[in-house]
């Protein structure tokens, strides 16, 4: 054990290890969640789901899909704005990877515990908006353009409730550090969702919109815009969007779990074991939340763009503001 600590004590080795881990978590989480989405949706529709690749349960379906994407021709439309078109999927994926850095998997198991962790996370998550807009604009496709514009409008509209929903938790914890927020919940002895249920609900709704998942998938809306801003992408560039979508699902759920559900901590689990149990607890919570997202996706239809804006500006933002006010007053009073 000491040897391990010593090796990881070396800043360069530790940095390399962290980079490697992040690079692994993104495709792994995308694969697990993508597969879960396939299987869960299949069962909700009385289907078998993937069953062929890999033999039992079709566990290798996503690997096969990945291999297929790499084999495909990398098509860039002639009229596309080439550099922008090529950069867009990378920027979208970059935002996802950068988000992972501040998520605490255990006490001390965090890539970088920034003192403004949650601020950083919310700021970084907006970067993908730029990537989406770039993809939509540069594709030289009217459907892509409409998808990109819808995405921009929607992501900006939902940035606000997302930030406001978080504020309640931050006020309660008194810190913006992700690790600190979990520690505050451990100290308080209850996950913040008990008090911050409104904030949690708003956060999840806004997160669904950020992720452009049903019922807020207007930017993609395959029955209206064919495939929205990803219409013209193929091969590994499409794969990047796919990875980003599912890895984002993972990180968004992880942030929600950290802020509202106690992160790597679970009541009645001794604190000493959190070093080892922490990651599993967090991933368990993430899986529960992503199951909810999948469940929502396969039950609901999508809103119309204007209805979505109505929901954000007329309902979520006032509600979030009221929540902040009440939390702040209570914090001072109690």
């Amino acid at each position, binding site marked *: 054990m000491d040897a391990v600590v010593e090796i990881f004590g070396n800043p360069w080795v530790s940095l390399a290890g962290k980079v490697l881990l992040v690079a692994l978590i993104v495709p792994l989480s995308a694969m697990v969640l993508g597969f879960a989405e396939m299987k*869960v949706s299949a*069962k909700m*529709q*009385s289907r078998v789901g993937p069953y*062929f690749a890999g033999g039992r349960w079709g566990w290798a379906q996503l690997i096969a899909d990945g291999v297929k994407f790499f084999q495909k021709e990398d098509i860039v439309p002639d009229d596309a704005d080439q550099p922008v078109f090529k950069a867009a999927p990378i920027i979208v994926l970059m935002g996802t990877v950068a988000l992972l850095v501040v998520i605490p998997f255990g006490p001390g198991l965090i890539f970088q515990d920034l003192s403004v962790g949650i601020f950083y996370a919310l700021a970084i998550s907006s970067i993908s908006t730029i990537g989406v807009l770039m993809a939509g604009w540069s594709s030289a496709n009217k459907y892509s353009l409409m998808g990109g514009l819808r995405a921009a409008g929607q992501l900006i509209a939902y940035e606000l409730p997302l930030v406001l929903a978080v504020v309640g938790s931050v006020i309660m914890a008194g810190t913006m550090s992700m690790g600190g927020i979990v520690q505050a919940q451990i100290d308080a002895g209850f996950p913040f969702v008990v008090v911050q249920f409104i904030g949690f609900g708003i956060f999840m709704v806004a997160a669904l919109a950020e992720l452009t998942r049903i019922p807020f998938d207007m930017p993609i809306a395959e029955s209206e815009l064919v495939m929205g801003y990803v219409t013209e992408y193929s091969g590994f560039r499409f794969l990047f969007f796919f990875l980003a979508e599912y890895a984002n699902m993972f990180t968004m759920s992880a942030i929600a779990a950290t802020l509202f559900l106690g992160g790597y901590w679970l009541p009645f689990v001794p604190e000493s074991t959190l070093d080892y149990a922490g990651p599993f607890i967090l991933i368990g919570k993430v899986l529960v939340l992503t199951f909810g997202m999948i469940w*929502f996706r396969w*039950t*609901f239809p999508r809103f119309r763009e204007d209805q979505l804006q109505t929901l954000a500006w007329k309902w979520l933002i006032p509600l979030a503001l009221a929540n902040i006010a009440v939390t702040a007053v209570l914090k001072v009073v109690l």
Partner: protein
Amino acid sequence: MARAIPGGGLVKGLGVTITTFFKTVFMPGKYLATINYPVEKETPVPRARGVIALDQDACTVCMLCARQCPDWCIYIEGHKEELPPATPGGRIKVRSKLDRFDIDYALCMYCGICVEVCPFDALFWTPEYEYSEPKMGAMLHDMDRLQGWLETVPDPPGLEK
């Protein structure tokens, strides 16, 4: 459809999907609607119009099927030949012998008129369906291939009383 609580409809919907989820997971035998196709297969009904089988011995090259075919997808050629008399000194019989009987399944629209008009019971439907081909030309089944389908002809189903 009175709207009692806002969002009540959404919750009802979530209830339907999650119930189906657990039903399918725990009682796949009863609730699963699909099957692992190449591994498991469904049995088509006996009357299913899958592919047409030909009984070469029964065919008399009367051309009725080729004439009635709306798509002109049956091609028949034949010649006459003499059969030795059944009893010594008997009459020599002349019968038509089939040389070519092709059905172009790329054209066929599976209407079943040929089977219906055949007066000698030389054509039959069989429910076999796995004969897709990567090339359009290979959809032309010759008389031997059609003869091969004959053993898959099922017994007719019983009738409703």
